[in-house]
């Protein structure tokens, strides 16, 4: 089994908030993150599989690049996570929730090939979501 990782960068704006709470309640719960702000995200996507006996590749990287452009950049790059996507109506776009949303989108597109994702919100903060059971 081989694992390979491809990265993609994108930028988005967001704010933490729950629809059923008032502005003041959201601010008390989430602090400064309740105001609209933005991040330069880096997503590292790790696939797993056996190399094809003919091509020697687990996946064609240009296909993976196109898939990430479509599934990730197409949905999130230079968008507002709250206003432009349907994923954060019930729970705020924390890095944990965002990583989980991305993992589910990519699992739908890649199936068993997907090992996991690492979403970096900045240099000092990242979230890993790994398929279970984790396999080497």
């Amino acid at each position, binding site marked *: 089994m081989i694992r390979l990782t491809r990265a993609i960068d994108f930028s988005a704006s967001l704010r*933490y908030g*729950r629809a059923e709470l008032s502005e003041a309640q959201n601010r008390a*719960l*989430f*602090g400064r993150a309740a105001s609209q702000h933005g991040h330069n995200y880096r997503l590292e996507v790790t696939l797993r599989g056996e190399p094809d006996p003919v091509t020697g590749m687990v996946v064609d990287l240009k296909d993976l690049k196109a898939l990430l452009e479509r599934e990730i950049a197409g949905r999130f790059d230079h968008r507002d996570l709250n206003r432009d996507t349907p994923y954060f109506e019930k*729970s*705020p*776009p*924390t*890095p*944990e*929730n965002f*990583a*989980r949303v991305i993992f589910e989108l990519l699992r739908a597109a890649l199936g068993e090939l997907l090992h996991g994702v690492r979403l970096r919100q900045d*240099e*000092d*903060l*990242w*979230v*890993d*979501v*790994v398929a*279970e059971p*984790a396999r080497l």
Partner: protein
Amino acid sequence: MIELTRRYRFPAAHVLRSPALSDAENQLAYGKCANPAGHGHDYGLEVTVGGRLDERSGALIPLERLDALVRELVVDRLSHRLLNEDSWFAAAVPTAENITLAVWRALGPAVAAESRAHLVRVRLVETRRNSFECGEAS
């Protein structure tokens, strides 16, 4: 499985010398790190927590809480200090291995006591070339 990792930094000094060893043996074991005058590093500390997401906050642990714990228990304690003078290292040489273990032992119970998350691992980056990890048996 979901894990969140936060990176912290603290500069600190240490001297690697064991009182159980002679000068010559210390020199052999630790080389230039045995310099009695000391030397130092900009340590990076990567703290990883896991658990179940709190559906209300969408977080494993409130980041301010994690930051406060690491600041109180580790960064404020070790930053800009000679590690040999800290009680964590009264009976242990402050190698990166022992620093990593001390941080793991200090943070694990605190994270468990103050949140629903648990500490998965700590990684101490001593230099660009050397890093040290301690974590749950996996």
